[in-house]
């Protein structure tokens, strides 16, 4: 009897737990994502996943649509010289030295708690961004802002003391907040005042105060009022599980037809393991995934597994996977292998069948020949494609004095009486596709007599400054492989802020210090971890940064790419792809271009065709 009772109770409990969460039946959507944001703070954070998530309940002054066109968001229109909202000041040589941009916020723009969005919010946002005590991850664009002035409740003017070609773009380039430009003053103002008061009282505790009170504020951790400017409003965040949002009735952008035809709730569930995420999709618990979570999976396999119930889309990510060479003369091992001689790098790129590699390790990826991606300002599609050519690779290596004199299959040469074997160290993270890459490169380079010594280390080790920035001390002594954001042609990845430059020639007067090449003299600072120093490239970069005309800038950027493609300080392997899975019937869940920097840019249009949502993308 007791046993039967237990079974009945268990059955009731299990049945009570059955719940319909997403899908057309409820007009909701459950998205699966592998990475959770650290917080919802508008100023701090870097991960793509946060850009996606913030996009559900925020919209910037502008946004980039799925065709790559910049559209006004909170702003009434995009400032241009022709509409008088952009005023540029040029010097005698015609170069832009300063610029002023006037923005007007829409009259019908409200925060999700009903408070109007005003110029005061914008000015406050910049005040926080510009407060030196504040833990703000980067000030790359806000440092260009000279002042921001309120004109009226809805209009404000930003003055840039240095030209900012990306003055109207997304991703923090306007210079206010990193995420979605404007933050709600009525929510964050009291937090800011409290934090600053505490720091003033105990300046020695600034970091713990900011971590605890600012990044740990209820509006940041989702334990208090989270207010946004977007189509959906925040409902709850169960940490390590999910975040829920509900449609706003008072959002100013609308899709065709009644709002009730479109999604009413969006839930983002965090699932770390790819097999579990995939199981969730197959089990019908997840109806779509973000553009990060299924990276590296084979689209054809996914299509076969999911059948007609789902759509699998492959798009460019804007990230280029590449081999970075140690070019520091001080690293003896690298110097012995002649890595500093461009012919060595040219031989290596021709010894790698990059088409085959991309197809095998990163399905959907396309071979890259530049440090930019398609869509960037000045992207040059006509660069030397460096086709797979073993004969050419062998000839170049022979010209450099390499020969397999002992017949063991590995090249040798003699320097000052020292016999040197071509043993090339390669290091990358432990991501599955990189482990596979190591194996494939090992086989390919063996064909030209290069013995690749493969090492896969955790990402936290590979990307640590003690490791990556100490190539001059041979912490890594051959190649380190990782991906870098392509130029995008938009902020925050200004094509000219990449890792290739060595000396910032924009300073007045120009000094000889190599600011961007990690050396003991600059405390190993900088992002040019290869140690590639090209005065010509640096000059072109400086010229391009001073050039405000997009066409002229494009021409200079093309010259930079030609130089890069010839010198190959890094060997570009492929433009990485991203995979998005969505259930059949989910419309307008369309990834923006790489320039948009976010997948979730048009949540107000998302809906189920079964419920009358109209596909406009």
């Amino acid at each position, binding site marked *: 009897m007791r046993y039967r009772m237990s079974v009945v109770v268990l059955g009731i*409990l*299990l*049945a*009570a*737990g*059955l*719940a319909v*969460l997403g899908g057309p039946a409820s007009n909701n959507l459950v998205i699966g994502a592998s990475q959770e944001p*650290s*917080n919802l703070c508008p100023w701090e954070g*870097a991960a*793509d996943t946060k850009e996606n998530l913030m996009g559900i309940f925020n919209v910037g002054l502008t946004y980039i649509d799925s065709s790559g066109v910049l559209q006004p968001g909170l702003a009434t229109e995009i400032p241009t010289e022709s509409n008088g909202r952009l005023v540029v000041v040029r010097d005698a040589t015609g170069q832009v030295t300063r610029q002023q941009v006037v923005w007007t916020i829409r009259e019908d723009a409200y925060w999700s708690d009903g408070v109007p969005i005003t110029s005061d919010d914008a000015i406050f946002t910049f005040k926080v961004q510009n407060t030196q005590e504040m*833990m703000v*991850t*980067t*000030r*790359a*664009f806000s440092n260009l802002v000279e002042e921001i002035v309120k004109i009226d409740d809805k209009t404000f003017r930003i003055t840039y003391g240095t030209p900012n070609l990306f003055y109207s773009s997304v991703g*923090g380039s306007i210079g206010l907040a990193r995420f979605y430009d404007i933050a709600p003053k009525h929510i964050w103002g009291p937090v800011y005042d409290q934090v600053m008061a505490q720091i003033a009282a105990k300046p020695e505790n600034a970091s*713990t105060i900011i*971590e*605890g009170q600012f*990044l*740990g504020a209820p509006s*940041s951790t989702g334990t208090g009022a989270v207010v946004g400017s977007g189509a959906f409003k925040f409902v709850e965040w*169960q*940490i*390590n*599980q*999910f975040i*829920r949002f509900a449609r706003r009735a008072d959002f100013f952008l609308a899709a065709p037809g009644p709002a009730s035809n479109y999604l009413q709730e969006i*839930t983002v*569930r965090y*699932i*770390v*393991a790819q*097999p*579990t995420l995939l*199981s*969730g999709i197959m*089990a*019908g*618990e997840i109806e779509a995934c973000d553009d990060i979570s299924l990276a590296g999976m084979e689209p054809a396999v996914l299509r076969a597994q999911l059948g007609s119930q789902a759509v699998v889309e492959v798009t460019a990510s804007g990230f280029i996977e590449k081999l970075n060479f140690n070019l520091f003369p001080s690293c003896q091992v690298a110097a012995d292998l002649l890595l500093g001689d461009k012919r060595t790098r040219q031989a290596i790129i021709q010894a790698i069948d990059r088409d085959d590699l991309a197809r095998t390790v990163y399905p959907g990826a396309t071979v890259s020949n530049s440090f930019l991606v398609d869509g960037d300002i000045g992207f040059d599609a006509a660069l030397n494609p460096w086709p797979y050519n073993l004969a050419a690779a062998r000839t170049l290596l022979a010209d450099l004095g390499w020969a397999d004199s002992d017949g063991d299959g590995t090249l040798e040469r003699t320097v000052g009486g020292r016999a040197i074997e071509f043993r090339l160290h390669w290091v990358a993270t432990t991501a599955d596709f990189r482990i596979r890459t190591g194996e494939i490169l090992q086989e390919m380079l063996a064909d030209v007599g290069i013995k690749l010594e493969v090492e896969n280390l*955790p*990402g*936290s*080790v590979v*990307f*640590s*400054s*003690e490791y990556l920035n100490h190539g001059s001390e041979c912490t890594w002594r051959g190649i380190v492989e990782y991906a870098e*954001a392509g130029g*995008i042609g938009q902020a*925050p*990845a200004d094509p000219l*802020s990449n890792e290739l430059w060595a000396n910032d020639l924009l300073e007045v007067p120009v000094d000889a210090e190599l*600011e961007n090449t990690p050396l003991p003299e600059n*405390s190993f600072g*900088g*992002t040019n971890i290869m140690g590639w120093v090209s005065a010509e490239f640096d000059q072109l970069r400086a010229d391009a940064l001073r050039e405000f005309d997009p066409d002229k800038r494009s021409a200079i950027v093309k010259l930079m790419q030609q130089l890069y493609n010839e010198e190959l300080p890094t060997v570009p392997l492929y433009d990485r792809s991203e995979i998005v899975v969505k259930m059949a019937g989910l419309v307008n869940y369309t990834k923006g271009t790489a320039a948009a920097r976010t997948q979730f840019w048009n949540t107000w249009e998302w809906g189920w065709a079964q419920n009358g949502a109209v596909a406009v993308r």
Partner: protein
Amino acid sequence: MATYLVRRVLQLIPTLFVISLLLFGLLAMKPGDPIDEMRRGNPGFTQADYDRLREFYGLDKPWYVQYWRWLGRVVHGDFGTSRQFGRPAAEYVFKYRLPNTVLLSGLSLLLSFSVAVPAGVWSALRQRGFVDYTITVVSFVGVSIPIFWMGIMLIYIFAVQFRGFLPAGGLATPGVTGTWPILGDRLRHLLLPVLALSSLQVAQWTRFMRSSMLETIQLDFVVTARSKGLSERQVIFKHALRNAILPLITLMGLNVPALFSGAILTETVFNWPGMGRAIYDAILVNDFNVAMVSLMFISLLVLLFNLLTDIAYALVDPRIRYG
């Protein structure tokens, strides 16, 4: 006994201090810091930003200076903030992670013990019989199947093939409200991970219990008990089992702290936010505060459970006395 207990508890303080020093030193030796994590995937991050933030967080100081600052905060009950989640590290570990692990590991422990002890005893009492062979084969299968594979198979069968019968993972279904639905929902989410986590323990402990029982029932005192005319039930459960279970108690005592930190595969496959994944992720992304509070907690558990095991010995075995 009381003196012994006080002495052992007092010994915990210097032991924990040395452990904290070692852990902090080891984490500091690991390449990378939280600022490297901020730089990753942030193309606008400049060297000036990097230098500014390192100074801001005091990461430009030697590790022992950072350790003293950390220790100074800890003695005031402040374990710092999780840079991964912007919450107090202790709150993150003890409020959001530990309860999930206690629930999962506790139920798994209970299930494993409830199944393994009777199965082991039964197997021993039916040595070389059908039951013994069946339990032995099942135990070997359980020991041989990796937990992650078992988990994936369970998900495939109960969540994918029988679509919607049980959830594929997670802690709870978003949006479920009401006491009974929440309870039922939690139970549905627990079933598969508990089964997966218990499978290995049940198999191992059954084998262990069987061996121990087999040894015990051949000892003289069991023969004496039988010769005194006690019923077989009394011989087995009152005399033999109490002695045979002693080694299993030791094993469990040593295993319990590991359960709090070591269910990482089960947690990952079933997307169960527990301690194992918290520690792993914290170390990977250089979230030192979370790593330190978690590892210190696990260290404390190891020390405490060693102490508890010793006490349990004394309670179960009247021959053991501490003075």
